[in-house]
């Protein structure tokens, strides 16, 4: 993190404090995200029930509130069946890769502005802030593909293999559109550091500076579509299309190993939602954040939850793509569109029109400080 030049003993103390803060931050982030995961599954089931005119799980606890706990206990206690002819080592490795990479990218998101605490002093509400945070997220996400591909391969099952192949093909294709959609934001903000990108999006009331209003509505749309495909959700859930492939790449996984794939799917949803919030919807920016910094945390998670709600809503309403449609949509429509977006952004940036307007609206946040 950021340490000034101090005398050695003081510096090592400072380092130790920073390391301890980071560890605590990671612990809190993981706990919060895991709790969010548990209740997203519950919300998803209840809300899908609502869309489809049925009740959903409502028996465990008041209104089904303890259902995730019951599910967890069930997953842990179930028999763990390993297929006889599976490739043992890879079969165990796959869920580990998926979950680890899904958790790893959580540490770079700034979930709040600087806050003042009684003992610790001023701290930034971001676990690790570094120069290439955005690239780190993309890199970690791209490693996550292996988990799914290897899970499909090692299960020694043709449905799993097809699911794994479909998934890796789909994720490679849509990663391209996803990355290209982000370039517009990078061009506009001139940095890969997520914290600076968020700080740049403060405007009137913390709303007028959001990138989605500033040149990037197209980029946002492309990102959103690619992100849904990247997380293998409806309408792009070809890798686990149950009418064709049983359950896709995790057909042969049981008990908690299946649970890990399940966790990873939702964590990836959180990751792409957080990235969308950070890059396009102003992160923790919102009305009165400067006066009350704590509000930023609520704004950030509120926006993330909005995205999660969108995911569930889509799942309840849209039918599934066919695989060749999915591929041609990605390569022949989204990628060219993303390139057009880059060209437009670059042209406007270069011509300086954007700077001129932003001088009046975005940067000089005048009366809100």
């Amino acid at each position, binding site marked *: 993190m950021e340490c000034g030049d101090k005398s050695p003993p003081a510096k090592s103390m400072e380092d130790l404090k920073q390391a301890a803060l980071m560890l605590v931050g990671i612990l809190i982030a993981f706990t919060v995200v895991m709790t969010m995961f548990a209740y997203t599954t519950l919300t998803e089931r209840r809300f899908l029930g609502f869309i489809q005119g049925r009740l959903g799980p409502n028996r465990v606890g008041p209104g089904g509130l303890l259902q995730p706990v019951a599910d967890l206990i069930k997953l842990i206690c179930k028999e763990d069946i390993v297929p006889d002819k599976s490739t043992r080592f890879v079969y165990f490795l796959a869920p580990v890769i998926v979950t680890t990479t899904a958790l790893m990218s959580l540490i770079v998101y700034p979930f709040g502005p600087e806050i003042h605490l009684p003992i610790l002093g001023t701290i930034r509400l971001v676990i690790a802030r570094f120069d290439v945070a955005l690239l780190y997220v993309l890199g970690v996400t791209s*490693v996550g593909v*292996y988990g799914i591909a290897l899970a499909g391969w090692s299960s020694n099952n043709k449905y799993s293999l097809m699911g794994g192949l479909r998934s890796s093909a789909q994720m490679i294709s849509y*990663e391209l559109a996803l990355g290209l959609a982000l370039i517009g934001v990078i061009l506009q903000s001139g940095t*890969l550091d997520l914290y600076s990108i968020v700080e740049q999006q403060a405007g009137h009331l913390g709303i007028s500076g959001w990138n989605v209003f500033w040149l990037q509505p197209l980029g946002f749309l492309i990102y959103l579509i690619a992100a849904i495909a990247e997380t293998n959700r409806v309408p792009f859930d070809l890798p686990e299309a149950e009418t064709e492939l049983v359950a896709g790449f995790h057909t042969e996984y049981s008990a908690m190993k299946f649970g890990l794939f399940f966790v990873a799917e939702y964590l990836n949803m959180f990751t792409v939602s957080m990235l969308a919030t950070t890059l396009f919807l102003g992160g923790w920016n919102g009305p009165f954040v400067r006066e009350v910094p704590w509000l930023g945390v609520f704004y950030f998670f509120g926006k993330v939850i909005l995205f999660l709600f969108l995911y569930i809503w889509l799942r309840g309403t849209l039918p599934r793509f066919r695989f060749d449609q999915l591929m041609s949509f990605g390569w022949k429509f989204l990628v060219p569109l993303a390139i057009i977006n880059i060209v437009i952004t670059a042209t406007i940036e270069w011509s300086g029109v954007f700077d001129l307007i932003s001088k009046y609206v975005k940067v000089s946040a005048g009366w809100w400080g």
Partner: protein
Amino acid sequence: MLALLFILFAGLAIGCAISMVAQRNPLYSAISLIGVFISLACLYVTLAAPFIAAVQVIVYAGAIMVLVVFVIMLLNVEEEERRPLRMRALVPVAIGLAAVLFAETVFIIFFVQASPATPTRNLSDVGLTSSIGAGLFTSYLLPFEITSVLLLMAIVGAITLARRGGLLPARAGVVPGDQVLPRGMLDRRDPGNRTPVATHTTKEAGRLLGVEQRRDEGE
């Protein structure tokens, strides 16, 4: 602390590299290679080059190796059998080259480090995105452009190779896994004819296409 991390990741990289060469299952080799790339990325981070590290993971571990794994899975490459060593004459040459490499390392460690240290400029911005970008587009512009032309050549070359006399005409339009073949694919004189020809098994489709089945795959 840094030394500890270096030993950890260097050891991991070397271990994965040895495993990559020694494994006979191509998929295990590929996984080991991914391990090498990721350990190298970690080493770059300890050397204060986060941008290179991130790009290493995105490009090598995230894109190229995914394609390799994909191809291995798609073709279902079998375990390689242990064959008698061909070209034994090359073994002493390899040992000689390895010795040269080792000597170079020793030379660097003992002689270059012993020489008086050259003053380095302020290192605070080396390895950051903006300094790399500025370097690429100012002082190293020509090599950068030449590299892009090289990559373009590789892409064009790959397309040319794939198209020349291949089985599939450009407009075949086959869905992967589909066993309904367009007529234009079977009849080379009539390319682009998409009237379907139904086949019932993979073997039958292969026979119609003239692809030899090397071994009997259980249906």
